[in-house]
C-alpha cells in the first residue's frame, strides 16, 4: 500500500483496528468466563491486560501516520490561521505574488510554445533548419537555389533527409468552385523526413520530382471543405492552376508544414518547378535562390558536424560556380524549433527577463512585509520558544507560512495567466510562428511551481534568518514591544536592490518605447489610408503571358471606372509587407564580375502605381502605358537607390543591367527614367531599402497584387471588385483582400505588443519599488516613534526630524540608482539589436529614468517623513 492510498484509507484502517480490539477483548472475556470467572471480573482482567484501548488505538494510528506530511499539514493549517488574522497583509502578499507569478507564467508559456516546445514530429531534436550564408549579408540566413540544393542533398552524408520547400499560391478547381489555396512546393521526401504518415494515401515518391509529374497532397481542411471528406478522392485527379494533378494523399488532421503554418492547403512536388515556364526552369538556375530547407540529422550527428560538412560542399560549389556561388561558401544548420522562432526570440527572452525582474522586486516587497511582521510577532516566537519549540521548528513554521503564501499566489497567478493569454494572443495575431499554440502545459506548470518554490526561498529567507539569529528570551523579558529590531539593514538592502532592478527595467522600457516611437514617426513614404489590395491568381496554362497582360489591363481599366475609385495598379510585391525580391545588377559605367555586382530589392508595377499608393515622384518621369515590350527598357528607382549607388551623381539617365529575366534577350540594359520617394517595403527596418521598379509590361512575372485607391472607405469596394473580376472570368478566385492600413496595423502589432508589455512591467516594477520604499520608511518611523519623540522633546526641530527620515531615503535611493545604472547599461547593450534609431546608452533616456524613479521615490518618502516630524512628544512618551 503506498502512502497516498494510506492517507485516504486511514479512516477505514482506524475503524478496523477498533473493531479488532473489541473482538479480541470479548474473546478474552469469554475465555476467562469459561474458566469460571464472573463476567465483571473477566472484563476487568481483560481490560487490565490491554491497558488503555484508546491509547492503543492511538498507537495503531501513529503507525499509519505519514509524520512529515502531517506535521506539515498542521503547520499549513496554523499558517492559514495566522494569515487570516491579518487579512490586509495576506491580501497584499498574495496579490503581489499572483501578479508576479502570473506575468511570468504568461510570458513563459509563450516562450514555451514558440521556442521550447518540440515540433510535433518524430524525434524533433534531430530536425534542423538548413540555410545558406551570403558573405555580403552574413547576419541572416539566405535561401538555396535548386541546383545548390540538389548538390547538397547528393553530397552530404550527415542527413537522413534534406527537404526543400517554398511557398506559392494556387487555385484549386475540381470541386464546385475555384478556391485559392496556399501551397508549398516540396522535394519528395517531406513526409519521411517528418516521420508523418498521411491520414489517407501516401506521401510523394522520388519520381514525382521529375518534369511532367503532377502530384498533390491535400490538407485535412481542404479535403473536408472542398471534397466533403470523400476518401475516394485519393488517386483521382484535381485541377491545380489549370493543370490536372493526382491526389496521392491526405495530410493528417492538425498537420502543419512549414511548422506552425496552418494556412497551407496543398503540398505539391517540385515537378512543377522543373517545368516552370521560363527559358531555363528554376530547377536549373543556380542563381535563383528561393528555397528554404529542413533536414533530419542522422543519429549521432551534431548540428555542428553537419554544418562543417555542408560548408565543405558549399565551398567546393563556390569554387565550381564562382559566378553564382562565390559569396555562398558557408552554410548554417540550426535546431529547427528555435530557428523557426527566428526574430521573435529576442523580444521574447527580453520580456522573460523583464518579467523575472518584476518578480524579484515583488519578492523583495514581500520579504520586507514579512520582516516587519516577524518583528511584530517576536513575542509569539518568544512564547513558543519558552514552551519548548526549537529555533529550527520556528524557522520551519515561518517557511511553511511563506510557502503557503506562494502556493496561493501561484494558483491565482496561473489562473490569471490562463485568462490573460486568452485576450493577449489575438492581439499578436500570427506574426510569430506557433504563438497561437500557447497553452499552459506541464512544462509551464512546472515552471510556475518552480517559481513558487524559488519565491518562497527568496522572500522567506529574510525573516527566517532574522528569527534564527534573534534572542527570544530578550523578546520575552522586554515585553516584546520595544524589542530591538536588528533587521533594518536587511530591509534597506532589499529596498536598494528593488530600486536598482526598477531602474534597469525602467531604462530598458524607455529605450524600447523610444525606439517604437521612432518607428511610428518614420515617414513610410506612402499614404496607406484608403488603399485596398487584393490578389487574383492567373493560372499559367490558361493565361499565357500575352493573355495575362490583356487581362490585367482590362481589369485595371474596369476598376478605374468604378465609382469611388481614384486609381488602380498592379504591384509585386506589395509595399509594407516586408516581402522582398533581391536581385543583382550591373552598372554600365562601372561593370563588375557577376559575384562583385551590387544588388537591390526590386518590384514590378504598372503606370498608376505611385499615384495609387501615394509615393511622390521626385525627379524625371514615372511609367506610362507606352513603356511596353516594344519600347526601350526602363526603370524607376527610389531615393535610397539613387543615394546608395549614384552618390553625388544624377541617377536619372544612367543605364544598369538587372539580372532579372523572363524571356530571350534578357537581361536587358535599362535606363533609369525617374526617382520616387522611399515607399517602405518593410515597415520594421531602420532605414528604407533601395528598390528599383520595373514596368510590369516589360517584365510580366506572376502573382502581382492589385492596389486600389478609393475615395471613401476602401472596404466598401470589395463586392464591386469581386463582381468585376468574376465578370472577366468566373473561374478566378479573389483572395487576400486587405487594406494597407490593416497590413500596417498588423505589422506594428508585432512590434507593439512587446513594447506595451515591457512598459507595463516597468510600471508595475516602479509601483512595487515605491510601495517597498514607503513600507520600509513607514515602518521605521513607527518603530522609532519614541526616539523621535525624545528628540523633539529635547529640542530638535521638526525639520531636523524630517531630515533624518529623508536622509535615509536619499541614501537608499542613491545607492539603488548607482547600482541600477550599471545594470541598465549592461542590459542596454544586450538589447541594442532590438533598437531602431535609439542609442542603447542614450544619456537623455537614462537621466529621464533616474529622474522618474527619484521623483516617485521622493513622493514615497514624503509621507513617512512628515509623520515623523509631526510626532507629539508627550503622547509618544506616554505611550510607553
Amino acid at each position: 500500500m503506498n502512502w497516498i492510498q494510506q492517507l485516504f484509507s486511514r479512516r477505514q484502517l482506524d475503524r478496523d483496528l477498533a473493531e479488532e480490539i473489541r473482538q479480541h477483548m470479548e474473546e478474552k472475556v469469554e475465555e476467562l468466563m469459561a474458566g469460571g470467572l464472573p463476567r465483571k471480573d473477566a472484563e476487568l482482567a481483560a481490560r487490565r491486560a490491554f491497558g488503555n484501548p484508546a491509547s492503543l488505538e492511538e498507537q495503531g494510528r501513529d503507525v499509519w501516520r505519514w509524520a512529515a506530511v502531517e506535521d506539515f499539514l498542521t503547520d499549513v493549517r496554523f499558517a492559514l490561521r495566522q494569515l487570516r488574522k491579518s487579512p490586509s497583509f495576506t491580501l497584499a502578499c498574495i496579490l503581489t505574488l499572483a501578479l508576479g507569478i502570473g506575468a511570468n507564467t504568461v510570458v513563459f508559456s509563450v516562450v514555451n510554445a514558440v521556442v521550447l516546445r518540440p515540433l510535433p514530429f518524430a524525434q524533433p531534436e534531430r530536425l534542423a533548419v538548413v540555410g545558406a550564408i551570403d558573405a555580403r549579408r552574413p547576419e541572416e540566413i539566405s535561401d538555396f537555389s535548386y541546383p545548390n540544393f540538389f548538390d547538397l542533398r547528393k553530397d552530404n552524408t550527415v542527413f537522413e533527409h534534406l527537404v526543400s520547400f517554398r511557398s506559392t499560391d494556387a487555385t484549386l478547381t475540381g470541386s464546385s468552385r475555384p478556391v485559392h489555396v496556399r501551397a508549398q512546393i516540396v522535394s519528395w521526401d517531406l513526409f519521411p523526413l517528418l516521420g508523418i504518415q498521411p491520414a489517407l494515401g501516401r506521401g510523394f515518391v522520388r519520381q514525382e520530382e521529375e518534369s511532367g509529374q503532377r502530384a498533390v497532397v491535400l490538407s485535412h481542411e481542404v479535403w473536408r471543405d472542398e471534397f466533403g471528406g470523400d476518401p475516394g478522392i485519393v488517386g483521382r485527379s484535381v485541377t491545380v492552376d489549370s493543370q490536372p494533378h493526382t491526389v496521392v494523399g491526405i495530410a493528417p488532421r492538425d498537420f502543419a508544414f512549414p511548422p506552425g503554418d496552418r494556412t497551407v492547403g496543398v503540398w505539391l512536388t517540385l515537378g512543377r518547378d522543373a517545368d516552370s515556364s521560363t527559358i531555363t526552369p528554376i530547377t536549373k538556375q543556380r542563381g535563383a535562390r528561393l528555397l528554404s530547407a529542413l533536414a533530419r540529422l542522422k543519429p549521432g550527428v551534431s548540428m555542428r558536424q553537419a554544418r562543417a560538412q555542408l560548408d565543405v560542399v558549399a565551398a567546393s560549389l563556390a569554387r565550381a560556380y564562382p559566378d553564382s556561388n562565390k559569396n555562398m561558401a558557408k552554410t548554417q544548420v540550426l535546431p529547427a524549433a528555435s530557428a523557426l522562432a527566428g526574430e521573435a526570440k529576442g523580444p521574447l527572452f527580453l520580456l522573460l527577463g523583464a518579467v523575472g525582474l518584476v518578480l524579484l522586486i515583488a519578492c523583495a516587497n514581500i520579504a520586507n512585509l514579512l520582516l516587519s511582521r516577524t518583528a511584530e510577532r517576536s513575542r509569539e516566537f518568544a512564547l513558543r520558544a519558552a514552551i519548548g519549540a526549537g529555533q529550527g521548528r520556528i524557522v520551519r513554521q515561518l517557511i511553511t507560512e511563506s510557502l503557503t503564501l506562494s502556493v496561493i499566489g501561484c494558483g491565482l497567478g496561473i489562473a490569471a495567466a490562463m485568462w490573460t493569454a486568452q485576450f493577449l494572443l489575438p492581439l499578436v495575431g500570427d506574426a510569430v510562428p506557433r504563438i497561437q499554440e500557447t497553452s499552459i502545459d506541464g512544462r509551464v506548470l512546472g515552471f510556475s511551481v518552480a517559481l513558487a518554490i524559488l519565491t518562497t526561498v527568496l522572500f522567506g529567507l529574510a525573516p527566517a534568518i532574522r528569527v534564527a539569529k534573534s534572542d527570544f528570551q530578550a523578546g520575552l523579558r522586554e515585553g516584546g514591544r520595544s524589542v530591538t529590531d536588528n533587521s533594518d539593514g536587511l530591509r534597506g538592502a532589499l529596498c536598494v536592490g528593488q530600486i536598482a532592478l526598477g531602474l534597469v527595467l525602467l531604462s530598458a522600457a524607455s529605450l524600447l518605447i523610444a525606439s517604437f516611437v521612432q518607428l511610428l514617426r518614420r515617414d513610410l513614404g506612402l499614404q496607406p489610408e484608403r488603399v485596398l489590395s487584393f490578389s487574383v491568381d492567373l493560372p499559367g496554362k490558361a493565361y499565357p503571358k500575352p493573355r495575362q497582360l490583356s487581362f490585367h489591363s482590362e481589369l485595371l481599366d474596369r476598376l478605374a471606372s468604378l465609382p469611388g475609385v481614384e486609381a488602380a495598379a498592379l504591384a509585386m510585391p506589395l509595399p509594407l509587407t516586408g516581402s522582398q525580391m533581391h536581385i543583382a545588377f550591373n552598372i554600365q559605367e562601372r561593370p563588375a564580375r557577376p559575384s562583385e555586382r551590387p544588388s537591390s530589392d526590386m518590384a514590378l508595377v504598372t503606370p498608376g502605381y505611385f499615384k495609387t499608393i501615394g509615393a511622390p515622384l521626385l525627379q524625371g518621369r514615372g511609367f506610362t502605358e507606352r513603356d511596353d515590350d516594344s519600347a526601350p527598357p526602363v526603370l524607376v528607382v527610389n531615393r535610397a537607390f539613387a543615394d546608395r549607388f549614384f552618390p553625388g551623381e544624377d541617377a536619372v539617365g544612367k543605364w544598369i543591367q538587372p539580372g532579372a529575366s523572363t524571356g530571350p534577350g534578357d537581361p536587358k540594359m535599362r535606363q533609369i527614367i525617374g526617382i520616387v520617394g522611399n515607399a517602405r517595403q518593410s515597415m520594421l527596418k531602420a532605414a528604407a531599402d533601395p528598390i528599383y521598379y520595373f514596368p510590369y509590361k516589360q517584365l510580366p512575372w506572376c502573382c502581382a497584387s492589385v492596389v486600389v485607391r478609393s475615395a471613401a472607405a476602401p472596404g466598401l469596394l470589395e463586392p464591386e471588385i469581386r463582381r468585376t473580376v468574376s465578370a472577366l472570368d468566373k473561374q478566378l478566385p479573389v483572395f487576400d483582400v486587405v487594406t494597407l492600413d490593416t497590413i500596417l496595423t498588423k505589422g506594428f502589432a508585432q512590434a507593439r505588443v512587446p513594447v506595451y508589455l515591457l512598459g507595463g512591467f516597468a510600471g508595475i516594477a516602479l509601483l512595487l519599488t515605491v510601495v517597498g520604499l514607503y513600507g520600509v520608511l513607514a515602518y521605521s518611523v513607527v518603530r522609532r516613534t519614541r526616539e523621535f519623540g525624545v528628540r523633539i522633546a529635547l529640542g530638535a526641530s521638526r525639520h531636523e526630524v524630517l531630515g533624518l527620515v529623508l536622509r535615509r531615503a536619499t541614501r537608499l535611493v542613491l545607492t539603488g540608482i548607482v547600482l541600477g545604472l550599471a545594470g541598465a547599461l549592461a542590459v542596454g547593450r544586450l538589447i541594442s539589436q532590438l533598437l531602431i534609431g535609439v542609442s542603447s546608452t542614450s544619456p537623455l533616456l537614462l537621466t529621464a529614468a533616474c529622474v522618474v524613479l527619484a521623483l516617485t521615490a521622493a513622493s514615497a518618502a514624503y509621507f513617512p517623513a512628515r509623520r515623523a516630524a509631526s510626532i507629539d512628544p508627550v503622547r509618544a512618551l506616554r505611550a510607553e
Partner: protein
Amino acid sequence: MKNTERKDLFPGALEMMVLQTLSGQPLHGYALVQHIQRNSNDLLQVEEGSLYPALQRMLKSGLVKADWGVSSTGRRVRIYEISEAGAKHLAQEVRSFERMLEGIRLVLSPVKP
C-alpha cells in the same frame, strides 16, 4: 504498569515470533497471543498492548496481510497471513538472531584458562 517481568525481550523479538507463528498458519490476534503463550510453555506472554501496534507496523511495511474472516468460534476477526516479504524478513531476522545468540553464548561461556 508495575509489571517488572520483561515480556518483550528485545526490539524485534515480538515481530519475529509473530512472523514465525504466522508462517505456520494464518491466525487472528487473539489466537496469536494464545499460540505464542502456549508454545513458549507460558514463559512468554504477549502483551496485547504491544501486539496490535506491532501488527499495524508489519501490515504497513507489507510483512503480513490481513483480511476479515470468521473464527472457529463464529466471531468476526481479522486474520493475519505472512506475506512473501514477511517470510524473507523472518529468515533474515532469524539468521541475525542466531548470530547474536551465538555471540552471547560465547561471551557467557566459562572463561577458558
